[in-house]
């Protein structure tokens, strides 16, 4: 590796060599192609060249604003042929940059974020994590509001005349909010249909308070409401309103951002005992301020972000011991690695290669969970090694609360039959236009990808908004 000879470079290189050996990168470009931020920021951000710069010229990287733009969705790491841990490498460099006081570059990054990334307040907290580089969240949020205020003043003059085509957005999670924001900015009359009594989707339902404070979420949503969109909360499409009625009410385009809110059930005995809950219900209960009974010895089944969130929330709310049971090994765990590290740091225990067999109860209430040890075999269709039980390795574990977080699927039963679904129940869309197999019907976010990160939903929303706009314009031309 080239060393420019100063003390800074040596320090940088030594820190990185702890996380990964950069020399294996063969510049295939898969990271940039997968990156949500690269898509939204265009030429302003390229993770591949950033990585290249780190080992060719570490000094410039310390002062570059690109360093602060990674949103931790881990898509690059999952697909990299060499398995390079890009988010971790960037984090190491960020802390070095902070040590050297290079925070001016962070300000420049913020400018870019406000310009191109919708929902900047939310994304800063949930995706960019300035606190991991030692910056104070409140200060950063104020900065963003300030920049946004200035930018708005210039933008207000540009607002175009009101367009006539009505657009319906089903679901007010990050994908739905993004579409609303992008189209609302341009003057389209958007109506949001949200089943819960308040807007926000997973942001409000599942992301715990300490990660995304409710007042920040409200601030962001207010900003969107101020664009003049129609909000219909407490209205579930398929129940309160029929999908076919939307077309009758002359919505020219519909966007489905319904997310993945149906928890998959665990097919074991004892799933209906008292004390067994689904993680989504548990988190929604916790976030909506309901009084929850938290057991002392909580067991969470699953390995995704929802499982980790539920475990941390349970600990936060007073459980003595929280253990996550995951049936595969650490390498295959789908949750973000940083979340897992933070959870372990807070005291959450994780047991790998364990799967529940039966939930045992006394007097209708959960008392123990019988598990079996698993071993890994050949990879299955998802590329992860298949887990199958080791005969005779059953063991019992005491517990008084079981939280199930083994996967969520979209609840899109209200869609007509002609809308094609993928094998796993998600909605199929054309990856360029985000249009489903029914013309005029678009989809994005968890409803399309399955459970994924906020920034990916925002990216989907942005793509869909552009696509809806060109669809409406072309429709207009056709009708004219």
């Amino acid at each position: 590796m080239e060393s420019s000879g100063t003390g800074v470079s040596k320090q940088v290189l030594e820190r990185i060599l702890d996380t990964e050996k950069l020399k294996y990168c063969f510049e295939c470009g898969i990271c940039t192609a997968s990156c949500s931020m690269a898509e939204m920021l265009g030429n302003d951000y390229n993770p591949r060249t950033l990585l290249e710069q780190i080992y060719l010229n570490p000094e410039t990287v310390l002062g570059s604003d690109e360093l602060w733009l990674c949103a931790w969705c881990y898509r690059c790491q999952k697909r990299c042929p060499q398995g390079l841990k890009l988010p971790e490498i960037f984090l190491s460099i960020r802390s070095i940059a902070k040590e050297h006081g290079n925070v001016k570059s962070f300000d420049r990054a913020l400018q870019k974020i406000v310009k191109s990334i919708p929902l900047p307040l939310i994304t800063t907290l949930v995706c960019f994590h300035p606190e991991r580089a030692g910056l104070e969240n409140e200060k950063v949020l104020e900065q963003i509001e300030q920049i946004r205020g200035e930018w708005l003043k210039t933008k207000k003059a540009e607002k175009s005349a009101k367009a006539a085509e009505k657009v319906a957005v089903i679901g007010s999670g990050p994908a739905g909010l993004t579409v609303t924001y992008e189209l609302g900015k341009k003057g389209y009359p958007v109506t949001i249909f949200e089943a819960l009594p308040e807007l926000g989707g997973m942001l409000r339902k599942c992301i715990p308070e300490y990660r995304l404070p409710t007042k920040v979420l409200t601030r962001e949503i207010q900003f969107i409401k101020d664009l003049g969109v129609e909000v219909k909360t407490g209205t579930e499409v398929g129940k309160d309103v029929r999908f076919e009625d939307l077309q009758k009410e002359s919505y020219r385009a519909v966007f489905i951002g319904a997310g993945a809110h149906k928890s998959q059930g665990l097919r074991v005995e004892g799933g209906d005992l008292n004390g067994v809950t689904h993680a989504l219900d548990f988190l929604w209960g916790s976030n909506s301020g309901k009084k929850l009974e938290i057991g002392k010895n909580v067991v969470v089944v699953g390995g995704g972000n929802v499982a980790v969130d539920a475990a941390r929330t349970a600990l936060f709310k007073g459980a003595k011991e929280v253990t996550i049971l995951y049936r595969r090994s650490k390498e295959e765990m789908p949750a973000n690695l940083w979340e897992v590290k933070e959870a372990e740091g807070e005291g959450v225990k994780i047991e790998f290669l364990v799967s529940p067999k039966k939930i045992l109860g006394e007097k209708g209430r959960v008392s123990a969970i019988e598990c079996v040890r698993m071993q890994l075999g050949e990879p299955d269709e998802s590329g992860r090694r298949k887990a199958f039980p080791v005969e005779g390795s059953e063991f019992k574990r005491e517990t008084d609360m079981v939280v199930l977080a083994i996967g969520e699927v979209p609840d899109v039963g209200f869609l007509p039959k002609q809308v094609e679904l993928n094998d796993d129940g998600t909605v199929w869309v054309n990856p360029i236009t985000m249009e489903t197999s029914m013309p005029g019907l678009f989809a994005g976010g968890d409803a399309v990808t399955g459970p994924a990160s906020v920034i990916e939903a925002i990216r989907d929303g942005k793509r869909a908004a552009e696509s809806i706009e060109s669809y409406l314009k072309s429709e207009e031309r056709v009708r004219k």
Partner: protein
Amino acid sequence: MSESKESKPRQDGQIRIGVYVCHCGLNIAGSVDCGEVAKFAATLPNVVLAQDNRYTCSDQGQAGIKKDIQEQKLNRVVVASCSPRLHEPTFRKACEDAGLNKYLFEMANIREHCSWVHLYDKEAATEKAKDLVKMAVAKVALLEPEDEVSVPITRKALVIGGGVAGIQAALDLADTGYKVYLVEKEPSIGGMMARIDKTFPTMDCSICILAPKMSDAGHHPNIELLTNSEVAEVKGYIGNFHVKVLRKPRYVTKDCSACGECVKVCPIVAPNEFDVGLAVRHGVYTPFAQAVPSTYIIDMSLCLNKEGVIVCDKCTKACERQAISFEMKPVTEELEVGTIIVATGADVFDPSVLPNYGYGKIANVITTLEFERLINAGGPSGGHLIRPSDKQIPKRVAFVQCVGSRSARSGRLYCSNVCCMNTIKDSLLIKEHWPDTEIYVFYVDIRAYGKGFEDLYKRARNAGVVFIRGLPAEIVEDKKTHNVWLIGENTLRKEVYRISADMAILSIGLEARKDSETIQRLLTLSRNQDGFFLEAHPKLRPVDAATAGVFFAGCAESPKDIKDSVTQASAAAARAGILMAKGQVTVEAITPTLFPEKCKVCGLCVKVCPYNAISLNKDLKRVEIIEAACGGCGTCAAECNFGALTQKHFTDEQIMAQIDAITENEAEKKIVAFCCNWCSYAGADFAGVSRMQYPPNARIIRTMCSGRVAQKFVERAFARGVASVLVSGCHLGDCHYINANYQTQKRVERLWKKMEQNGLDKQRLQLLWASAAEGEKFASKMREMKTIVENVKPEEIEKGKKVFATALEGD
């Protein structure tokens, strides 16, 4: 049978040792002060001549040695230079030419084990070199002249694998005049080459150039074709292998005229493996039209007639030659051969484990192997490249390179060699037939290294094939049209591309066959970490296996194209031919020496011999040794508690002299390391060749097998005050002498127990299993042991001396 020999060391004055310290250019002289080592050597007992020269292995150097042997009347020679695994035969021959018995020669490895691994510590390297020379001098003084036994070589060869490499090797050997058995697992020879359409760079039709060779192999009077057969057992040694081959039944006799009438009436239909499942065959079938032998075969796992009950006799009725026989049984044939050539080939990577490419889920994503079958005129689509979803000819095709190669995620870090050229050839083929097709190739590097390859690449570019540098991150299907979207970054233009194509073709890499482990066990071969077989030396002996008499040809040894496979096959045939031309092979004189008066007929040596070369003769109250069957491991000598057996050229006295030489000075800072010739010593050599640096505490004593290391050697080392001892050998199950290293394990465990019971730190005795490819493992062990050495206290050393003091008795 061997007789007892008295081996007392000769008196001083009668032994005249010549020591040559080689500079090897700067390879050794760069980190070792050879002049100083030579001066030191002159001071050692019995040394009458010590000099340093630049290139001892050169003609000049060798001539110098020969001259000194004759003029200075030297009767022992030590050369301190490179690894004996490289040049011991060279110098032994030089000694022989000068009239000195070649077993009176010893080498000190001051290059791979010293100068190359201690590049930056000249002082320590020079001290270590001096110690290594001292060890060699001590051993050589005790060496005795030996005569080698000659064993006749069976003038027949076995070729395992009937691909193009196996066929070429068989033809070359058969043309030379030797009988060859060609064993092939599948019902027909031809291998992978029979399936591809055209070859690069000449765009020759593959089966057209292969079929004449296959036919020659089938008709050659010296080649016996054993298809649908597998090698079940291999016993013996070079020149005298006893092989058992299991011939699985075809259920069709040799009377078959390949008319094909049976196929027309067979009701069973199954996917044809030859066409990668893209076409259909029947229960009775021939794998492909040009199959050799042309006899058909019945797939009994699908046939309706099971367990002798004949339910359907349509094929029997249809056959005019009455060639179908359901009574055929598997037959085991026993063969006697002199040499074996392994040409088992390679498998292809299965991309279903890469979920972002959608292979197996998206209909229009295929592999290059499936492409070969589609574009082949004899294939399932008659030579038309069609999309699996709607059988239309695509107008836009995308090739994705490096699938399953050069990637840690897929578990295969190496480059598969042939995929770049294969894609270029495929794109030219498509352009030839359908010139308007748009072709995109997504690559990271284009490797067009061979003769005519760059020209083919230029032709492809001129024909309008678009090369984009940047692999797709994912391949997504459009469910309406079944087209595919490839999304990736064009790294040269720094823009993300989203290209829609009618079909995507994944350029998959080659990987080691899953059954290569079976061949490895049968022939006691080594494999590298990618699973391919390991050659004896990567540069100088690229087709020899470490096991004498076994050679490699083709992709079994590493991925390569047809030209290199054929070249290697001819090379292997030539090497095998050398052995068989001589007609006899000399067995190295490292067989056991028996002292019958000490034999107590306990039978322990009989139990541990992996070759069953020792038998008990109760009447004569001694054991008897069959020298020709002896493999030369020395385990029997290590096992004998009564001193009745010792191994020639590695006697107890010689090894103990080496231990004494090491521990004479500063023993508390040193490690005595016992390394087996085939694996761990080779692994240490490999660490040297790769210039891995490690601390200079170790002094390596070479034995043929780790099984030679007797308990008393380790005990003696501790008794002399050494800080730490390392015993290393091949991995369990991979021992070159089949299973001798299990004895090593037992002995080390006994020693550990004894150390624990006597309050000694058992960390001082380390056991390492390392293969010849694991240089890094050896180097890390050395680094680990340095810490152990530094932490050993003087009281611990003294205690060790006391506990094992009995080892010094009888001195």
